[in-house]
């Protein structure tokens, strides 16, 4: 009987870390989203003049939330290897700016949306999809964050809004450019877009 109890204890000990692990990705994403919401709703940052401070704070949260290298690789997919290491670096930095400009700066306008995190779905051994819903007045928008485990923390490498994957959407756009133009051309286009040209 004692031996049996010992076995059970061991099994239970093995089981619990698994249970804890199941929620880690969701907690990581939710933690970052909550931080963004805190910034958006911070009463001391309400004035028009503190918009830039808000944007900077959100960008800083984004830096810790996303894996921009992974995001870039997956976006370029087979075209990634056509870029030299320097070009890859430049691409990652420009792509990050583009996403920050267009998304981080836009969400400054949102304050009263309610966000509900529902569940995790594992995609591969290293990747998980964290599912959430943004509740707007006339509709509910499903937003799924795809995360990958890097050095013990879960980082976002794709955002899927109403079934539209950010990575896939940009991949389709970039592929059209790269099908008849060299990587430098795409980099120039991105530079113009983010105002670094």
């Amino acid at each position, binding site marked *: *009987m004692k031996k*049996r*109890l010992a*076995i*059970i204890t061991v*099994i*239970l000990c*093995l*089981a619990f870390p*698994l*249970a804890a692990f199941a*929620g880690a990705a*969701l907690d990581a994403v*939710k933690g970052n*989203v*909550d931080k963004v*919401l805190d910034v958006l*709703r911070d009463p001391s940052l309400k004035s028009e003049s503190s918009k830039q401070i808000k944007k900077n704070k959100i960008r800083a949260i984004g830096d810790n939330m996303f894996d921009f290298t992974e995001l870039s*690789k*997956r976006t*370029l*997919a*087979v075209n*990634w*290897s056509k870029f030299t*290491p320097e070009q890859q670096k430049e691409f990652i930095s420009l792509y990050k700016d583009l*996403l920050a400009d267009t*998304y981080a700066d836009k969400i400054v*306008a949102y304050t009263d949306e*309610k*966000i*509900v*995190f*529902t*569940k*995790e*779905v*594992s995609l*591969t*051994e*290293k990747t998980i999809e964290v599912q959430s*819903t943004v509740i707007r*007045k*006339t509709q*509910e928008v499903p937003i799924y964050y795809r995360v*990958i485990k*890097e050095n013990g923390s879960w980082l976002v490498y794709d955002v899927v809004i*109403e*079934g*539209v*994957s950010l990575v*896939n*959407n*940009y991949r*389709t*756009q*970039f592929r*059209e450019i790269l099908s008849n133009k060299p990587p430098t051309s795409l980099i120039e286009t*991105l530079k113009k*877009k983010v105002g670094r040209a």
Partner: protein
Amino acid sequence: MKFAHSLILISVLMLCPDVLKAETPVTSADASAVTDAALVPEAQAPIDEIVIAQAEKSSDEQKATPVTEQAEGEYVPEEGEADAPQIADPLDPVNRVVYHFNDKLYFWGVKPVTQVYSHIVPEDFRFAIANVYDNLWAPSRIINNLLQLRLKAAGNELIRFVFNSFAGIGGMGDMANEALGIKKQEADFGQTLGHYGLGHGIYLVLPVYGPSSIREGIGLVGDQLMHPLTYVKSADLTFGQKVGISAHEKVNDTSFKIGDYESFKDAAIDPYVAMRDAFVQNRLKKVEESKK
């Protein structure tokens, strides 16, 4: 002894997530899962429904190559994600012209009109109007849910339609959702056609309406045939009046979405391609949902 036995059983179940195949989605009626971050920013969302749905893994994903094992610069995309869903676009030049027409229509027509409209009509009224218009699409949702053999969803839509039409005074309030907790069960005819395996055919950008395809175009006609307004006699409402009502529906609907198209366009490198891709991905998701 029996106790010990069940403990072992539980342990085994926990260790083998494969056994936990059943997926239990959290309904939004489950108030405990709803966290209003505004009120309780620090609150931990109770997550009792985390499911590692290993059963959902496609064989493609299981074969996926771990990315970090690739040497820098030699990225091989994971199988199954190498290509996003595509659509044939042989009418690209024509579609682009229509796309630009719609773009101008939005910025020069729909948007300014909507802004004036929003200024005059308070949000609560617009919200009630949106519900009335939405309620008129319920017959289409009921029929399409039935056609997709989603009987529970069809039943829910039927209850919603009856309840909202009477208790919600013609659908002004979404009473079925607020009082009964029955949510809208989206379904349309394009999705039904996709459900039975019909492909898009080719990509089409329709004037005023926007991104579509042969299949989705047929879907639009089908949905219109399931709309009550279609059956109002021309003696009661002229064609012009019906168009006016549809235009009002569009403006009222847009009043909640000002800024969405602008953000989308701003984020895109090639808005035409971005929109086509978003359309294909979004419709694919709808069709996949109809099969669940």
